[in-house]
């Protein structure tokens, strides 16, 4: 369905590529054209770390139609070890046992499937950091 939109997002969804402001060092994810901290316009590529901590979470029990196969599912905002905050699903865990402060790691997962015949959208999800 959204070939161009998905494809444009690969650097972020697949590789967690962020932009580091050359002037003030702020890390923007997604990359931007203007630094949200100092307004500068030059960035260098910075890869995000793959571990972090849960800042807040919820369990979506009434799911949109494309997620009914995994309902109930948890989403969380986690702060990665470099301070960047991300929203993603938190999977492979008991949704009733999640706590703020839980350590998570990022894994590559299929995030959406466009019905029987459309394209597959891959990206990042959180899993509990158990090793």
């Amino acid at each position, binding site marked *: 369905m959204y070939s161009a939109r998905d494809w444009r997002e690969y650097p972020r969804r697949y590789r967690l590529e962020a932009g580091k402001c050359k002037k003030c060092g702020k890390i923007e994810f997604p990359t931007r054209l203007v630094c949200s901290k100092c307004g500068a316009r030059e960035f260098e590529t910075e890869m995000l770390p793959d571990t972090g901590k849960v*800042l*807040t979470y919820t369990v*979506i029990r009434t799911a*949109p139609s494309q997620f009914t196969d995994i309902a109930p599912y948890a*989403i969380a*905002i986690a702060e990665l070890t470099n301070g960047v905050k991300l*929203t993603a*699903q938190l999977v492979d865990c008991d949704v009733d046992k999640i706590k*703020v402060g839980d350590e998570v790691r990022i894994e590559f997962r299929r*995030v959406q499937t466009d019905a029987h015949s459309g394209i597959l959208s891959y990206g990042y999800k959180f899993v509990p950091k158990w090793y």
Partner: protein
Amino acid sequence: MRDVAVVGVGMTKFGEIWDSSLRDLYVEAALGAIENSGVDHIDSMIIGCMSGGLFVGQEHLGSMLADYLGIKHLPASRVESACASGGLAFRHALIEVASGMSDIVMAGGVEKMNDISGDGATFALATAADQEYEVFHGATFPGLYALMAVAHMEKYGTTRDMLAAVAVKNHDNGALNPNAQYPFKITMDTVKSSVMIADPLRILDCSPITDGAAAVILTTVDIAKKLGKPYVKITGSGHATDTIALHSRDDMTTIKATTVAADKALKMAGKTIKDVNFAEVHDCFTIAELVVMESLGLYAPGKAGEAVLNGETALNGKFPINTSGGLKSKGHPVGATGVAQIVEIFKQLTGVAENGRQLKSNPKVGLAQNMGGSGGSSLVHILEVA
């Protein structure tokens, strides 16, 4: 800048209005406002509507609604700021009159949400969030506010009961509002045992899917005086945005856009929050009302929940909030909500709120707080008795 007043208001019943289309709803509210105001013409019209396009496939609302209102060649625009579209329409109408560009402007709001499937409505509402970094990952609207609720509960110890108390109070008020979608009381137990949507928010913590429209007429205070009908002064207006994604906010437990907008509005009115007597706030979810109460500076961070439990914000409380029933009981036709808030404040300030909803405390200053998405935008307006 000229002094501006609201001279008339109108709204439809809010609810599942099967017999009315988007244009029917808007025209009904608009005609009601025109009649209520006594004006014999309007110079322009600003319409707040989140997404006529996604809900009913209709854009170009300025043209269509001016056409259906029967006013040929009327300048009409549609503005959008997700759930704050109505408040934004009101602000733009205010600016147009205050600047001298027009004398009489209608600010209206409308949303027709029930012609589309539940899934379609969820999709349309989710366009208020960050598509690539929140919605793509499965964050729903209730989900984003649930994330806020968990963060607030973790930081301040806000409880499940505090959230439920907001819904109960708003239904107490909405039961008295003839235009409300759900004009009946509910109990704490009913809220706490209703189906879970996104932990901890249950269905009765969430405002509903609603059809409805509201409209108000703005003009100069001078013209309002000449019309000889009750009017209300607009003394403050503030507007601010914040990051679209919740995870980008500096503090996820407060709505900074509301704080900044409120500061601007109060400064313009020459007032502090302590001078305000009552407010209509954007309770899209119960947690939102608590967070907004704190963001407005009405209560210290973490203290709003207790205040609701103690009845401070009830109809007969120290600071009544959402005498209309709020979004929870009155309904939330997205684009209309911000305008409907003005309708309620107008009624309270001119002493005509129906069915025993009228505040006995003789209020002088009302505040309307409207916001979009998870707090990505906010409009705050201050209105005062003439």
